């Protein structure tokens, strides 16, 4: 998601970047395009206006400026505005001093409250907490059953009482205290923001459990209405944060931008897939640079740290640089990589990726034939792929359910990649090469990074990455 918005903005920005002088008509034209790009991304009209006005002021300033490259100033203005609109800080959960910490989930029908209740519970569990869920959606048939099933999958208890949602919430809270659970998540029925009766009900539920956090679940595909809905819920419930659901689609995420701007509450979490662990904290500053196509190295590093152990990585990287990287190593790393998330998601976080690659829809299942081919090889073949000729090729193809041409292509590609990596290992040992551009302002260092590591610069330090010169016949 956000990809479409980023590519449109990139296009606009490329036009002005490097212009020696900006005229007012340049600015007018650019503002028109930025406006359209934001509207097509479902950013709320009111928000579009205020963002555009502020960018315009900067841009007009740039036309009068004698400084070098006024285009660059405009780029900075756009970046600053987006970061501001998305909100600066990541929401940090403060647990109640007297447990349990109570979380109330609210939203329209079908926004994903039940699924996200379970995802949030799983997230709390991963933080070392003992969550419990309360099913207070007695409206939709089988909603409680759905919550119970999800609860079983993540091993989190679910409380519900068919009597009445308010009673359920109150009783559930007592039950949680009795069981000594330290986090309670209350799932409520979906309701329209204009349904006064149902809004009153959720207010009463909120009164009964007195939540520490009230999260509004919003579908990333929502259009202009997102803001009205968020305002209405905020007026009734005092929203503390937003959970954006279905962020793995291709909606342009304007709803996310708008809601933050209008109710002044951050996007706390984002749901990025159908699996219960595809759910993460939302980092606004990182998202802004992702929108502008600057990549999101911090998230990438964090995910990599989770997926690879240091020793493994060290060994594999050494092999890689020396051209000793075998298909076996590749398979192993690929499997570790899967833990980091979907390939498409990873691609979108990498800086300097060519647009063709970024926009390609990559399904993780597309890698299955690759895995199948490699697993159909003997140990010897995996170590020395050059020995794969005629009959071996046919055997591998038959074994993996692919064609001889597929096998050929994989082997050839691998060989070329290996060569490229070897070159890179000799030419551009990190630490020796030029040390990236320092200090993209505002980026925070993740814990545990060595002092000289510059995340913003790291992307530029990988030789051969931008534009992929080393890969022959790369598909457009």
């Amino acid at each position: 998601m956000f990809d479409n918005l980023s590519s449109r903005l990139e296009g606009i920005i490329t036009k002005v970047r490097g212009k020696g002088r900006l005229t007012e008509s340049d600015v007018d034209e650019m503002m028109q395009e930025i406006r359209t790009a934001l509207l097509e991304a479902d950013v709320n009209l009111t928000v579009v206006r205020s963002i555009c006005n502020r960018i315009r002021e900067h841009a007009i300033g740039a036309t009068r400026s004698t400084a070098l490259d006024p285009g660059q100033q405009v780029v900075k203005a756009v970046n600053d505005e987006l970061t501001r609109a998305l909100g600066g800080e990541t929401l940090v959960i403060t647990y109640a001093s007297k447990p349990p910490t109570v979380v109330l989930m609210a939203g329209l029908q079908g926004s994903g409250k039940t699924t996200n209740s379970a995802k949030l519970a799983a997230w709390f569990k991963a933080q070392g907490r003992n969550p419990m869920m309360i099913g207070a959606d007695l409206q939709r048939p089988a909603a409680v059953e759905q919550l119970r099933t999800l609860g079983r999958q993540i091993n989190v208890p679910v409380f519900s009482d068919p009597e009445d949602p308010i009673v359920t919430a109150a009783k559930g809270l007592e039950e949680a205290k009795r069981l000594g659970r330290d986090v309670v998540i209350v799932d409520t029925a979906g309701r329209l923001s204009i349904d006064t009766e149902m809004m009153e009900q959720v207010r009463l539920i909120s009164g009964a459990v007195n939540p520490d956090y009230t999260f509004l679940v919003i579908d990333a595909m929502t259009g202009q209405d997102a803001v009205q809905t968020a305002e209405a819920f905020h007026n009734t419930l005092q929203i503390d944060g937003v959970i954006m659901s279905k962020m793995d689609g291709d909606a342009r995420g304007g709803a996310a931008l708008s809601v933050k701007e209008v109710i002044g509450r951050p996007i706390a979490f984002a749901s990025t897939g159908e699996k219960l662990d595809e759910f993460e904290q939302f980092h606004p500053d990182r998202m802004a640079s992702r929108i502008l196509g600057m990549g999101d190295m911090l998230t990438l590093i964090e995910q990599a740290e989770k997926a690879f152990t240091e020793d493994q990585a060290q060994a594999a990287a050494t092999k890689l640089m020396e051209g000793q990287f075998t298909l076996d190593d590749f398979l192993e790393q690929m499997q570790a990589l899967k833990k980091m998330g979907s390939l498409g998601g990873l691609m979108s976080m990498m800086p300097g990726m060519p647009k063709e690659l970024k926009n390609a829809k990559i399904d993780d299942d597309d890698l299955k034939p690759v895995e199948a081919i490699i697993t159909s090889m003997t140990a010897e073949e995996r170590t020395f792929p050059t020995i794969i000729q005629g009959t071996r090729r046919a055997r591998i193809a038959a074994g993996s359910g692919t064609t001889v041409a597929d096998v050929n292509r994989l082997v050839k590609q691998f060989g070329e990649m290996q060569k490229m990596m070897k070159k890179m290992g000799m030419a551009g040992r990190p630490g020796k090469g030029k040390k990236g551009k320092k200090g993209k302002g505002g980026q925070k260092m993740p814990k545990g990074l060595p002092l000289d590591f510059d995340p913003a610069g790291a992307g530029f330090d990988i030789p051969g990455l931008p534009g992929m010169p080393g890969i022959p016949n790369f598909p457009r």
Partner: protein
Amino acid sequence: MGSEFLFLILAVFVVVFGVGVVLLNRRKSVGQPAPGRPVSTQARPLVSQPESDSHVAAPQLDSVVEEEPTVEEDLPAGTFRERLAKARSTFAGAIAGVLGRSAITDESFDDLEEALLRADVGVAIAGELLSGLRVKVANKEITEPSDLLDALEAEMTARLVGADRSLNFEHFEPGHPNVWMFVGVNGVGKTTTIGKLAKQHVDRGRSVLLAAGDTFRAAAAEQLTAWAERSGVDVVRGAEGADPSSVIFDGIEKAAAKKIELVLADTAGRLHTKSNLMDELAKVRRVAEKGAGTVTETLLVIDATTGQNGLTQAREFGQVTNVTGVVLTKLDGSAKGGIVFSIETELGIPVKLVGIGETIGDLIDFDPEEFVSALFER
């Protein structure tokens, strides 16, 4: 050398290589029908046991489920405007603005553009609608502010009228059911729509069977079963994680055996960007015609709150399943559902039904004139 750097190089290498291979393979396979790719359909990591795992469940209610919502009898269809009128603010401001001026000015057009954009009509369609009007104003064909509003209303209605919006029901010989399939992204209201529609058709004297093809979402089949109970129809369901194609196929076979006329087939919500799930859906659509039935409607369910992404949804689902109509749900909220203008204009898929509330009678035929005039209520 920082270890983070190693992670990155590894990640980059593996990703770039993996993606490269995938793209090459894909380029090679262009021209072949997508579903033929050997990769697809089994992304959801659950065991699939066609045939044996689906069974006819006696409709059974959970005590939780029984309570609500209270089912009202069918409401007269004329309530469309009243229901939409609950949340009118989008156009009201613009209308007041336009009528408040003694002549048509640039501000009048700004007001109208704002109203259209806020209704999710989209930049392109709003631009087209207004540029037509600007020409007429320039030529003095329109001079009065109130005429400008009427002209816009007429223009918008004209974009929607003319399509055949009836649900296609063929009178096949007994044992040959009509199959209506429901597709869409997650959370738009597919299951609820089927529940309401089942009751309406039973009341109309048709025999109906529900096929619980959403085998992915937890308790989706229970939800459908609860609806089946309300209208007293059979439901065929499989185990959670079963192959949806085989569940729906079984449903159709069962309907044929019992000489049931109409099968309403539910499918799991899926984002149109997940090609493996879209391939799965294509398979469901193909398999549904392998047995005794014919798919006479494939309805895309879209939530009225959906923004510009709705057009992409319609295009992608349309390509995979040959969508024959749209069901626009949740139109009783504050959202206006303006995305249907793009869907109808650009893709030619007619809106057939709209959902305007929670009760069974709140799923009604789409009436373009009422839809547009409700926006313009003065």
